């Protein structure tokens, strides 16, 4: 932290205070909750891109996985499902999946060791087809049974503590990141970008359409909080508007602690030998490889680590908003907004990521009513001079923000590629 950082953080605090004064305590605490969750996700992306030089254009997918994790872990148990035939059918599907996986792995091993050439490839392909057919033959009836008659329409949650859900969000995101990373790391960096876009769209398609697992577009709410809810405060005799502020401040404390722990750990790692190695790999992977660093493994490590933070942040977002709606996720609000955050904040600087996250997120939220007002005024003006009102004013004004977001990316890359807080490399070590 130097003077520039302190000044910028002070300016940001003033900005947020001004927004808070304008919008009220209940709203600004809610915005800050989301903003801090975005900050954690931004640190995750900053590790991947700023430290590792790895693209992740699938942030939304990892955020969705986190949201799914906290829903599955923390939502109350659906008793009707567990009394139906659903669990047995799902168990059979799981068994089919295991058998299929064993078949595929077996065929692959056989191809590797004994049956090289076309015969081995044919065998592997056959194993994949059989495994896929086997799994589909079990999961399809199970899914339609649970959705139509198996009690409640979906499997429900596990009723555990929400913090466990956050941790599970990190685990799920790590799993997805491991698979994507294993496939596309070590190839051109563009390939990782494509693969992450693909995996994020597939995660979205899965979570949106697997109604038996996530209720799909029917949405799940309310997701429990790790801290007392506004309703609890109301039961203790606090008035309704104040109860929201208290409850959100409580959750804000938990989110801030998680963010702080992540920041301290990441910052310490960055200043240690591990951080130096990662920077070396990012700046010249051929030289690092010649110094005996296992480039691909290290890149996988950093990709998974960043995704864990993104997954946890995604779980937090779902907790904060208390609703899991797979249909509401759009790349613009997650993937692209977070890229703007990291580019504007300064790639390679975690304080920059936090600064960028709060600044950009609050601006993004505030710009919505601003754009509406601007377009309203324009529409009035055009009516007055006889051109008529602007049609579909609400969607158009929100699209104006999409354009601006793109412009911010292009402008930042051209005129301020280092970001607000540039990466600082200590040379005195």
């Amino acid at each position: 932290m130097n003077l520039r950082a302190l000044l910028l953080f002070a300016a940001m605090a003033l900005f947020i205070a001004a927004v808070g004064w304008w919008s009220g305590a209940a709203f600004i605490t809610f915005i800050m909750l989301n903003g801090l969750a975005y900050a954690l996700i931004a640190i995750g992306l900053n590790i991947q891109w700023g430290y590792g030089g790895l693209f992740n254009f699938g942030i939304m997918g990892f955020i969705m996985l986190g949201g799914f994790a906290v829903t599955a872990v923390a939502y109350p148990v659906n008793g009707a499902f567990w009394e139906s035939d659903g669990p047995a059918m799902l168990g059979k599907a799981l068994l089919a999946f295991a058998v299929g996986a064993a078949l595929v792995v077996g065929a692959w091993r056989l191809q590797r060791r004994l049956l090289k050439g076309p015969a081995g490839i044919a065998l592997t392909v056959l194993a994949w087809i059989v495994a896929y057919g086997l799994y589909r033959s079990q999961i399809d009836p199970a899914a339609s049974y649970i959705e139509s008659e198996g009690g409640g329409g979906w499997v429900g949650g596990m009723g555990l503590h929400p913090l466990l859900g956050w941790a599970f969000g990190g685990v799920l995101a790590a799993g997805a990141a491991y698979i994507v990373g294993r496939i596309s790391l070590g190839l051109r960096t563009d390939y990782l970008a494509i693969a992450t876009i693909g995996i994020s769209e597939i995660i979205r398609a899965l979570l949106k359409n697997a109604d038996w697992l996530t209720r799909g577009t029917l949405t799940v709410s309310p997701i429990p909080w790790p801290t007392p809810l506004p309703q609890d405060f109301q039961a203790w005799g606090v008035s309704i508007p104040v109860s929201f502020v208290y409850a959100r401040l409580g959750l804000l404390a938990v989110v801030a602690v998680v963010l702080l722990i992540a920041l301290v750990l990441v910052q310490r790692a960055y200043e240690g030998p591990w951080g130096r190695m990662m920077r070396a790999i990012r700046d010249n992977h051929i030289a690092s490889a010649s110094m005996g660093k296992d480039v691909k493994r290290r890149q996988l490590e950093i990709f998974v680590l960043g995704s864990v933070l993104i997954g946890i942040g995604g779980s937090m977002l779902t907790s904060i908003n208390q609703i899991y709606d797979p249909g509401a996720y759009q790349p613009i609000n997650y993937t692209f907004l977070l890229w703007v955050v990291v580019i504007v904040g300064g790639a390679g600087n975690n304080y920059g990521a936090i600064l960028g996250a709060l600044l950009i997120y609050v601006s993004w939220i505030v710009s919505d009513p601003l754009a509406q007002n601007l377009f309203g005024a324009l529409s009035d003006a055009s009516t007055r001079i006889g051109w008529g009102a602007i049609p579909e004013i609400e969607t158009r004004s929100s699209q104006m923000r999409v354009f601006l977001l793109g412009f911010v990316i292009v402008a930042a890359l051209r005129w301020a590629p280092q970001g607000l807080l540039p990466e600082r490399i200590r040379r005195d070590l």
Partner: protein
Amino acid sequence: MDDFIFFINKALVSGAVLGSIYALGAIGVTLIFGILRFAHFAHGDVMTLGGFVAYGLALVAASLGISTFWPTGFIVLPLAIPITAAFALGIDRTVYQPLRARGARPVTLLIASIGVTLMIQGLIRLVAGTGVYSFFDTEPKELIRIPTEWMGGSRPINLTEPQLLMVIVTVLAVVALHFFLTGSRLGKGMRAMADNADLAQISGINTRHVIRATWVIAGGLACLAGTMLALDVSLKPDLAFNIVLPIFAAAIVGGLGHAYGAIAGGFLVGFAETLAVFNWSVVLRPFKDSIPFEVPADLYIVPTEYKLTVAFVILVIVLLARPTGIFKGAST
């Protein structure tokens, strides 16, 4: 036999159309990659923009009372293509060229292309709203029926007029591209620059000229593909995001930087997607006596909602088995 004709109508025809769209998009992606060495993510949006330019021109033509035997969206293409190409050139001038001049790495251009994506999407929706448009609000979509009595069928093979036109235009565009790349001085320069930009420059090839030509070709083909997609299905502002994955999959399957590979990859991905969401039980039904298990009423390889996974799975297989693509392209 009629089941087979159903298969042709539902699977082969739409597979060929989708394949042409992907191929045209993938050629643009692969050319830009070959010359400028970065993945141009905004290409899907240039396609959408091309579709909207054609739509706007078609509206103008309709208001002027121009109506012909051919679909209006098709008639305006000779105007829409240069406009879109000029737009693509403009993007390069204002966004990518200053970055290149500064010596920015290709990854910076890649991120800039994401910014361009958002700007184009925002612009399109600012002008057109978020609705769905069709080229065929004012005129009918002509259906072409090919009788099949000669091969023992009772139902005709159905093609819509835009489908037929577009497949023909794709073939023509691909042939023209082939002669351009192999025959003309500029085309040869493009291939030389794709192989080795520095060597091309010191051999006296005007690389700035080649870059301009690349954007014009890529933008023009994107307009063609976008209009084609809009004519075949419908025109939506968020058309692009769903096609960007298939066209990149197509370009990578064919080997990044290889124009012919991109064509092959485009058709591969197009057919794979169509066949994967095709209801195979229709084709299996005639053989139901000789199949040991009962044929279910619906037999999709993947449910329609997961159509996008097909392109991804193909991409993953190629990345695992042959990262350079079918025709050896760039991988590292």
